[in-house]
């Protein structure tokens, strides 16, 4: 049997992304381990990626690409491109964050965020 191609409603995506984002926020705020916080940050990035890709697919712009002999209608892949950028940056951020964590560990002999509070008045 074939089912009619019913698109997944957009609020599903939004709800998923929101949940994921809130989980990330919660992890960022509640966890004391620096590694866990980095992981939570990754969750928030991914929630954003979901939003980007979902909205691009549903509300994306369609434009005509003029080639040599023919014209072709294509959908804009901006959301996906952004998502890939975000993933790249998230990877770089994870590298920097882990390096920081290692440096903090070397300095404080700990990566408990409660111990790392010297940058203040």
């Amino acid at each position: 049997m074939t089912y009619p191609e019913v698109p997944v409603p957009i609020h599903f995506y939004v709800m998923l992304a929101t949940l994921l984002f809130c989980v990330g926020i919660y992890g960022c705020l509640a966890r004391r381990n620096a590694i866990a916080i980095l992981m939570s940050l990754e969750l928030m990035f991914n929630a954003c990626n979901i939003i980007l890709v979902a909205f691009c697919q549903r509300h994306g712009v369609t434009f005509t690409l003029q080639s040599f002999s023919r014209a072709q209608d294509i959908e804009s892949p901006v959301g996906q491109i952004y998502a890939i950028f975000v993933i790249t940056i998230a990877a770089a951020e994870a590298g920097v964050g882990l390096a920081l964590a290692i440096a903090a560990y070397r300095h404080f002999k700990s990566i408990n965020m409660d111990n790392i509070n010297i940058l203040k008045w």
Partner: protein
Amino acid sequence: MELGLIEKIFKYPETLAHWIVLLPFLSFAFITLKLVINRNVPLKPRLKEKPQKDPNLPPPAWKSYIWLIAVLAVALAFLGIRGGMREGIDINIAGWVQWIVGIAVLVAVFWPNNSRQWIQKYGPYISVAAIGIGAVIATSLWLKTVSIGVYSNPGLPDSAWQQAFSYHWFGFSDFNIDIGLKLDGFGVFGVWMVTVVAMCIQWFSLGYMWDDEYGRKHIARYFAEHSLFATGMLGVVLSDNILTFLIGWEVMGLCSYLLIGFFTHKPSANAAQLKAFITTRIGDVGFMLGIFLLGLMYTYTGFPISLNLDDIQFVATHFDWWGVNLGWLPTAAALLILMGAIGKSAQFPLHVWLPDAMEGPTPVSALIHAATMVAAGVFLVARFFWLFELSPTAMLTVAWIGAITAFGAATIGVVQYDIKRILAYSTISQLGYMMIGLGVGALSAGFFHLLTHAYFKGLLFLGSGAVIYGCRHIQDIRYMGGLSKKMPITYLTFLAGTLALAGIFPFAGYWSKDEILAGAFNLAKNGYQRYIELGGDLYRVQVIEPNMGYLVIWFLGVAGAFLTAFYMFRLISYVFLGPNQNYKFRGPQSPDWGHHPATEADTTAYKAWPTPPGPFDHDGHEHADAEPKEVPKSMWIPLVILALFSLLYGLMGMPFMGERNLIANFIHHGHPHFPVMDGLTIGLMIFGFAVALFGVSVGLMINNTEWGAAYKDRLKEKYSGLYRVVYNKYYVDEFYEEYIIQPFFFLTQVARTFDNYVVDGIVNAAGWLTWQFARFQGWWDNTVVDGIVNGVAWIVGFFSDMVKPVQSGYVQNYMIVVIIFVLFYLLTLFVR
């Protein structure tokens, strides 16, 4: 044409005239430098026998050739000078002087004998030699002047002579200072007198100072100061401009200060030197103001300002000729210049320094009183006679001051007992005569008396020095007596001087004093006329009208002449005649102290000396040679020279010489005025001689006969009040003490009180106020300014304390804040 030095001295002495001034100065400079350079080298005791040098030892190399270097230097200098002369090169004398002074310095520095002994031994001879060479040149100069002036020219060829010596010293714009020599009659006769008298005095000093313990130690300093003194006087006499005149004048003031206080250990000498300096200084202020007035006169003309005496005279006298009324200017200038002369020449109001100046060594008194210091004042008036001539007031002031001084000082001299003080008062008196001569217009007579007086007063002071030397530093004439047998040469020479001073024919003083008195008489009879030459015609201006009242001046002079003869022969009879009263000398405590009550003045001489003088040594034991003894040859030869001058010098100015009268021929202003021998003049001469003889006989009788002594005592009883007044010198010193010095001290007290309380009060009050203000300012700064600053900081701190917990350092806190704000932002998006 080449001339040797000796030939030059006697043929062209005018080309060497500057050396008369320079040589004493060089000797002064040399001795002083040597003393200063070697000041730290102690005096070694002289060894009786020099240690024999080892003949095998070679001498130090450089020392053995120093004579060669010296000879070569001298030879080179001579060759240079002679070569320059042969080539007709004008040799710059001033340049040579600098070289010679420089060489003297070098010699003084590098002389191998590096001790004070050398200069102590030879310095005096250098000094005497310098002034002696000057005397030779001056004598030759005088001879040439006289021979040219009398036998070929009516006057001096002075303009031609003087041009040779005018030397441009310095100048700016049209103010130029040319210094040079003025070899007119005043200069030539004066310089001859100064050099001869100074030479004799220095010669005498050799023995006199060597005899004194202190003087022997400081003999080089003594002769250096002596040389400088002579330099100053020679500068005054020979100057052709006011500047060098003033320099010489002030040098003399300095040297009188130094020499009067030569015995630095005597407090009385220190007081006397200060008194002399300050008193003459008072006069010098007037002198300088007078010079400034003369300068003011130049502002009325278009002439470039000149300090030359001839130029000033030309301008001032031509003003008068042109009929321009100078008003008060000549009178004021003349009176101010007279102030200087009064101070220097010890005239009446300022005469007080001169008797005190007796504290110096006796030859110094001779120098001050005869040749240099006091003569300078009279010389000043004679030099500026053209100025006094313009103002009858000034002339009469000079005459009256002279008359008062001549008579008053003579009366004081009558009652003194200190041999030097008697001579000091006679000096003041004789200077008064010179002033009379100048004041009544008898210029040549006044200057003639200056010259003769220099010779015989120098002689008298040196004679008194010889007496003091012979009597072991006793100065009170009551304890002398009978010295004519002990010291015959001193007696005869002293007698010659005394006869000259008393005015006995034919000694020098007779001619000069008589001419002054004749001049004073002439003033009363004819007044004074000034001569003006205009366009070849001679005009006569009556300056002072004849007035019989001026006979008072003449009378005071005659009375002074009588007193002079009297007190001088009183002195002779005390010192040289009668029995020797040296045995009386047992000190002030002795009952033998004499029939006069001992006063303070009597004991001054004894107090002044650190050891009891007289024929007793420190322990009171009698010396073996306690008897007065004749002075050695080196001391009586100068006496004889001066005695010859005292005898013969007056012959130059005999009034019946007519046109051949050397004094009237050369010492004049304008046209020479030769004395006319009429009945009146001859009568006055005889009268003057009679008065002098009367004084001599009274002076001899009053001490040497019994009835004379009794009469003297009776007179003294009868006029005891007058005697006391005169004995105390008319209380002039006391008057000054009471009415000038004490008020001055009072003024200083007032000034000190004012200073202590008012000025210091203001200063302290200012200080106190500053302090108080500073305290307030400190409080303000600490409290208010710092309070504001600290308050701002506190407020900032307070708020920062409030705010800073926000920055906790926990990253998650910041994140919460960010999230809260983001949520808040989102809320604002939705709630609209």
